[in-house]
C-alpha cells in the first residue's frame, strides 16, 4: 500500500515542497512588511553552500553537525537579508534591483560558487543527511504513515514554523502591527509603530528562512553540491507568495502542489516512463506562469492579498 505510486509521489511532493514552503514563508513575512525580496534565490544558494560546508567539515556526530550546519545557513541567509534591508530601507533604493543584485552576488556565478570552489565542495558526497524520523513508530500506517509520521526533522520544523507564522500574523500584537506596516506605513507610523524596525526585522527573518530553505537542498534533498543547486526554487517561491495571496495557509497548499509537480518528473522517470527530461524539468516553471496568470487576471479584480505598501519606501514627512 505504502509503496503505491500515489503514496510515493505524495511523500516526495512533501520533500520537494519543503524548501518552497520555507522560502515562501520568509518572503511572505518580508512582503507583509512592505519589502519585496527578489534576492531569495541568491540567499537560498548561499544558505545551501554554507550549510553543506559546515556539515562536511565539522567532525562531530551527525545530529550536532546538522544542527550547526542549519544554524550556519540561517545566519548566512539572515546576513544577506540584512544587506537587502539596509539598501532598501536606509538607502531607500529600488527593491527590485537590490534583490536582483543579491541574487547575482550570491548566485551560481557568485559567492555560492566562490565558497564551494574554495572549499572544493563540488562532487563531494555528503557526510550527513537529515533522515526521516519514525514518529511514535507510526510510519507503517497506510497512506498517512509515510506522509505524516515518517518525514525528516526539517519537514516537521517547517510545519511548526508555518503554524507559528499563522499565529504570529493573525493572533499577536506584533503580527497586527506588521500587517499595518505593510498595508499603510504612514498610518502605522502615526499609531506609534516603528516602521523601519518592523521592516528590518522581517527582511532579516525572511533571509533566515531563505537560508534554511537552501540548506534543505544540500542537507536533506540531495546532500551534495553543484553550482546553481536550487535551480530557480527561490523564484518559484516568490511566485507562490502571490499565488497564496500572502496567506501562510494557502502557501502550504501551493508549496506541496509545486512539490508534487517537481516530483512527478523524477518519480515517473524512475518508473521507466520515457519522455524528455527537460519537459518534466520545465513543468514547475510553466506551472508558475499559468498560476500567476490565473491569480492575477481572474482573482485580482477582488484585490485580495497584496500588501498595499509593498515596494514603497517609507520616509516620515517632517
Amino acid at each position: 500500500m505504502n509503496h503505491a505510486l500515489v503514496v510515493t509521489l505524495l511523500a516526495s511532493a512533501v520533500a520537494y515542497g519543503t524548501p518552497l514552503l520555507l522560502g515562501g514563508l520568509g518572503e511572505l513575512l518580508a512582503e507583509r512588511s512592505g519589502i519585496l525580496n527578489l534576492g531569495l534565490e541568491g540567499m537560498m544558494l548561499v544558505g545551501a553552500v554554507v550549510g553543506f560546508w559546515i556539515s562536511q567539515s565539522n567532525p562531530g556526530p551527525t545530529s550536532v553537525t546538522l544542527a550547526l550546519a542549519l544554524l550556519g545557513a540561517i545566519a548566512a541567509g539572515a546576513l544577506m537579508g540584512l544587506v537587502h534591508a539596509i539598501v532598501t530601507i536606509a538607502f531607500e533604493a529600488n527593491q527590485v534591483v537590490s534583490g536582483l543584485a543579491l541574487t547575482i552576488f550570491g548566485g551560481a556565478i557568485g559567492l555560492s560558487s566562490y565558497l564551494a570552489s574554495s572549499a572544493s565542495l563540488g562532487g563531494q558526497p555528503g557526510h550527513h543527511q537529515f533522515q526521516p524520523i519514525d514518529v511514535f513508530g507510526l510510519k507503517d500506517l497506510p497512506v498517512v504513515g509515510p506522509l505524516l509520521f515518517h518525514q525528516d526533522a526539517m519537514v516537521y520544523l517547517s510545519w511548526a514554523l508555518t503554524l507559528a507564522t499563522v499565529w504570529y500574523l493573525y493572533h499577536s500584537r506584533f503580527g497586527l502591527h506588521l500587517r499595518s506596516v505593510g498595508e499603510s506605513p504612514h498610518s502605522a507610523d502615526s499609531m506609534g509603530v516603528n516602521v523601519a524596525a518592523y521592516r528590518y526585522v522581517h527582511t532579516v527573518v525572511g533571509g533566515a528562512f531563505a537560508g534554511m530553505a537552501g540548506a534543505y537542498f544540500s542537507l536533506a534533498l540531495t546532500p551534495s553540491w553543484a553550482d546553481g543547486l536550487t535551480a530557480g526554487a527561490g523564484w518559484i517561491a516568490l511566485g507562490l507568495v502571490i499565488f497564496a495571496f500572502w496567506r501562510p495557509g494557502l502557501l502550504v497548499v501551493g508549496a506541496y502542489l509545486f512539490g508534487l509537480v517537481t516530483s512527478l518528473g523524477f518519480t515517473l522517470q524512475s518508473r521507466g516512463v520515457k519522455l524528455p527530461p527537460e519537459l518534466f524539468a520545465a513543468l514547475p516553471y510553466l506551472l508558475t506562469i499559468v498560476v500567476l496568470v490565473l491569480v492575477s487576471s481572474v482573482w485580482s479584480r477582488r484585490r485580495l492579498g497584496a500588501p498595499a505598501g509593498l515596494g514603497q519606501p517609507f520616509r516620515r514627512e517632517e
Partner: protein
Amino acid sequence: MIRLERRLETPRWLGVVIPLASVLVALLVAGVVLLASGHSPVEVYRSMIEAAFTAPGAFSATLVSATPLVLTGLCAALAFRMRVYNIGGEGQLYMGALGASAVGLALGGLPGPVVILAMILAGMAAGSVWAAIPGLLRTYANTNEILTTLMLNYVAGLLGYYLIFDSNSFWRDTTSPSAKVFPQGKTLADSTSWPAFHLGAVTVPLGFVLGVVLAAVMFVVLRSTKSGFQLRVIAGSDRAGRYAGMRTKRAIVLVMLGSGALAGLAGASQVGDFSHLFDPSGLQQVSYGYTGIVVAALVAFEPLPLVLAAILLGGLINAGFTLQGATFPQGLVGMIEGILLLCVLCGSLFGRFRIRMRPAAAGAARTPGDRGSAGEDRPLVEEQEIPILASGSEP
C-alpha cells in the same frame, strides 16, 4: 545631526562619481573576501587588469564579452526605464541564438550579406516573440512580468538543452565524429560568419558596432522624438500618460518587444560573431542576460555611457575566463557584479538627497511640496511602482 534634504535635481557630476566610487567600493569589498580566503587582492586585481585591458590582444577579447553586454544592457535599460522589469534578457538571448542559427543553417548557400541580414532579423524576431509573452500577459492579464520573464529564462534554457542533447533536432549535429562523442550543434557555413572590423590591433565584432549604433539610436529616440517623449511621460506616471490620451498598454507591449529584440540580437551575435553554432550550455555558463542588468543599472539606464559600462564588465568577465584557476577563484565575477550593483543603488541616495550636518531645528526651511519632484528622467527613484500582483493598469 545628519539630515537628508531632498534634491530638486541631481547634479551632473554625481552621474560620474557614483559609478566610479561604486567600482572602487566593490573592488575593496571583494578584496576583503579575497584576503579572507587566502588570496592577495593586489595580485588578483593586477592580473585582472592585465588580462582584461593591457596584455596584447586583451582588449579584443574584452570586446568579445562586451558585445553581448551592450545589447543585453540596452535590453534592460529600455525596459527598466519604463518600469517594465524585463529580467528575461537571458532567455530572450537564447531564443535569439536559436532563431539566428536556424536561419543561418537553412540559408547557408545564399550570399553572405543576405544570410547575415536574415540572421540579424531572425534573432531579433525570436527574442521579441519570447518577450511578447510576458509583455502581453502584463498588459492584458495584469501578470507580474518579473516572475514570468524569469520563468521563461529557465524554459528557454531547457528548450535549448532538449534540442541539442535529447533530440535529433534541426540544430543538432549528428554526423561529425566529435558530435558522436559529445552532443553539439551543427556548425554554420563559413559564409554566414559576421564580418569584424580592425582598428589597429583591436578587433571589433559586428555585434559590438550594431550595439553602439543602437545605443545612439535609443539616446536620440528617447531624447528628441515624440514617441520618446511619450515613453518618458508613461515612465514617470502611467496615469498621467493615459490622461493625456497616450496608449500606455500599447507602449508597454512595444517596449517589451523592443527589449526582447535587443537581447535576441545579442543571441544572434553570439552565433554569427563567435560560436557559429547553437550552443545552449555555453550560453548558459556566461549568463550575459543577467549581467546586462548590472551594466544598465551601473549607468542609471542611460544608453550612451552604457557602452563604457559594458566594456568595463566585459573586461571583468574576460579576465574571469582568462585567469580561471588558482589566481582567479570561481564565482568572483558574480560577487563583484552584485556588490557593484548594491553600491550603485546606495550611491543613488546621494543623487536624491543632499546631506547636511546641522541642528535639526534649522531644517524647517525646506519648501513644502518638493517631495515627488525628483525629475522625470530618472524613473527608478521616488515612488517605485512595483507590479507584484496587478500592474496598476486597472484604474
